[in-house]
């Protein structure tokens, strides 16, 4: 591969980079896929209690069907043996319909295969508000609510904290800086905890905002009023999330920027007399871009799953409360569906991060294949 012409050597170098990245990416993709499959399989086993839920389900089917048959006037005249025979056949049919007659191991593999193909199946107990039984429909129906709430709060926290941290790292030791350090321990409590207090103060002691839910009941007709109502309902949960993580977030970013702004090359730039904005943009932010993007992506991942407890406290109809309800109903397809969706999103985000790293960080590009 020795070419005398410099431009073509350059091109080969570029090709070699690309090949390395491709090789690296496919390896990562495979690893991620295997990881997701193992994670999903574990969830399947846990959500079925290693097969014990099946026994519960069979009992439930039996009691529902025998009650139905006993209550049906059409079968009242039937002799009792014939009736129990009828119950037996109906139970058997239902058991076969739900594949409960197969051993759990076979079915768990079957679940896994369907999950891998993102075929989430039908819910057993739950249905969406429009009446659909498809797990996909149920999840998609709840997704916007979660994305709206957690997206608003997390984006707010992310951008406010990064900007505030940059500002504070320049004014190290100032009064604002010390105030943030002093307030950072307040983040020991989770958002739902502040939520309870916010509900107490702003929904009961001074009733200015609704204590929970997503829109007024009944929902307003005009689109404009509907949006306004949703926004009013969002104020308290967003404030709770914002307050519970903003100070720790600013604190950790501030520390991070402080460490990076004491690097030798930054000192050097300062000694050269470069303007502060240039130092911040090119000497502090550029090398720290990968960690910032990582944390942004991790925040996006956290966003998808929502939060069971915050949604419960604020009665928010999102994915978190969906998962909680599904667990309560022992509706395995919905539980597995939520976890599968989460796992796939996580894998996609991690994979995108790998590509981004390769573009942003020259070190990854060079060492990628090794």
């Amino acid at each position, binding site marked *: 591969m020795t070419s005398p012409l410099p431009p073509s050597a350059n091109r080969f170098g570029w090709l070699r980079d690309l090949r390395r990245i491709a090789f690296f990416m496919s390896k990562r993709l495979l690893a991620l896929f295997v990881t997701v499959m193992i994670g999903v399989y574990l969830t399947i086993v846990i959500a079925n*209690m290693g097969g014990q839920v099946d026994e519960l389900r069979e009992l439930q089917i039996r009691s529902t069907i025998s009650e139905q048959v006993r209550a049906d006037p059409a079968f009242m005249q039937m002799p009792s043996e014939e009736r129990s025979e009828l119950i037996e056949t109906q139970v058997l049919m239902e058991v076969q319909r739900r594949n409960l007659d197969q051993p759990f191991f076979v079915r768990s593999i079957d679940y896994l295969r369907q999950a891998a193909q993102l075929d989430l199946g039908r819910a057993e107990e739950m249905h969406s508000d429009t009446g659909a039984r498809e797990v996909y429909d149920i999840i998609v129906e709840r997704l916007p609510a979660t994305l709206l709430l957690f997206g608003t709060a997390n984006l707010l926290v992310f951008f406010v904290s990064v900007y505030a941290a940059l500002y504070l790292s320049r004014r190290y030791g100032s009064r604002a800086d010390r105030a943030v350090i002093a307030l950072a*321990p307040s983040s020991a409590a989770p958002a739902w905890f502040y939520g309870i207090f916010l509900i107490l103060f702003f929904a009961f002691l001074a009733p200015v905002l609704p204590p929970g839910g997503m829109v007024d009941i009944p929902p307003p007709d005009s689109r404009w009023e509907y949006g306004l109502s949703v926004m009013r309902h969002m104020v308290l949960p967003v404030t709770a999330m914002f307050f519970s993580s903003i100070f720790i977030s600013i604190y950790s970013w501030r520390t991070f920027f402080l460490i990076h702004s004491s690097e030798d090359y930054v000192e050097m730039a300062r000694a050269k007399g470069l303007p502060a904005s240039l130092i911040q943009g090119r000497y502090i932010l550029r090398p720290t871009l990968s960690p910032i993007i990582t944390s942004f992506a991790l925040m996006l991942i956290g966003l998808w799953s929502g939060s069971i*407890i915050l949604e419960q*406290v604020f009665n928010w109809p999102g994915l978190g409360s969906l998962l909680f309800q599904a667990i309560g109903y022992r509706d395995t397809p919905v539980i597995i569906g939520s976890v599968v969706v989460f796992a796939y999103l996580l894998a996609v985000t991690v994979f995108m991060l790998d590509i981004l790293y390769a573009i942003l960080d020259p070190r990854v590009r060079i060492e990628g294949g090794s």
Partner: protein
Amino acid sequence: MNRWLSAMQELRRYPSAIGGLAIILFLILLAVYTVVTIPYGEALDKWRGGDMWRSTPVNAGPVWLDRVMGGDKPRTRIIHSDDAQIEEAAFEGGRQVRIPLVFDYDNSEFPSEINLFLSTSGGDREAFIRLNWHTPSGEVIPLGGQRVARSDRVSISQNPALEGRLGMVPHVGLFAGGSEPGNPQVAQGQYRLTVDAIVFGDDAKLDTELVVYGRVHGLAGSDFQRRDLMVALMWGTPVALAFGLLAAVGTTITTLIIAATGVWFGGLVDATIQRLTEVNIILPLLPILVMVGTLYSTSIWLMLGVVILLGIFSAGIKTYRAMLLPIKHSPYIEAAQAYGAGNTRIIMRYMIPRILPVLIPTFVTLIPTFVFLEASLAVLGLGDPVLPTWGKVLNDAQTQSALYNGFYYWVVSPAVLLMLTGLGFAMLGFALDRVFNPRLRTQ
């Protein structure tokens, strides 16, 4: 050791560390005091509720809170027949007994409920009682009569006939002194409930106890099952501290050992650990805990086990690995190898102690996370079935719509204790962080 001592001395310079330590010390003392004064079995018994709380009012606020707000809500009054001047008249085959249960009522608010508890012993037939209520103005309100079983309760407040006659609920009407039903005012003074009883048999004995339930109770108030919230608030402390501490110790130490093992052996071991960590990150912790709670058992110790199990391969491994990698090739480890130290010795005695100081702040700040995790589970209704904890109090309050009904103390007191725990450990942890990681201090 010297390093630790100097760290402790440096810690004194941080007011937040002192504050945090003070809070933690307070919580530990409270926990010890609780465990000594209310033994475990007794606490479970009390929290199970039932008859032992029969003379505690339902949903009463704390006394001090009411007094601070300038209120004058009544406390519970218990009048027992042992202190009453009993008149007796014997007749053939039995006795006629008159028990006057006298008490002063000088509060401006009405009581929340009135019950009369009766118990008879001896005698060959059921006793018969007739009740009369004497107000300070001399009015006599008959409350009817009935037979008395061995152990009986007359719920004066839940007497619909009486309510109809008074035009108000009995515990208001009996104290209203004939004021307007629309705007009843308490008539203060001496009240008397006379129990006229006929008991059969010479050895027959009748015990009566009149309970005029107040609207405030003790330091912490009571809940919807009449239980004194103090039991749960106090017992919540040792439970929270133990859960937080054990979970934090369990997860950090196992994670650290596994990270160190992976770094030391490298190769396949390291790769396996890395992959396991990635699988574990996919498994969402809270949903799994909720699943375990709903499907298996909500015992706090099972939850603790699951938390530790899922915490072993947590994301922390990646951080520790990054810290340990440069240490692996440092000269002191090569020296240890040269004189023949084994793998275990190198991992446990040479690698882990090296990054322990960096870990201590993380460890301290991790404790409240687990305390709040336990509370989160309890708020979702997956608290330990028998143990009183702060989270369970919050859960009860939520299911009983405490905020909607205005029982703010029910939500605020466990929340304040949780917050105190969180703040105490977090403040100490942040100060420790600055002591042990000097890079954050100097600029």
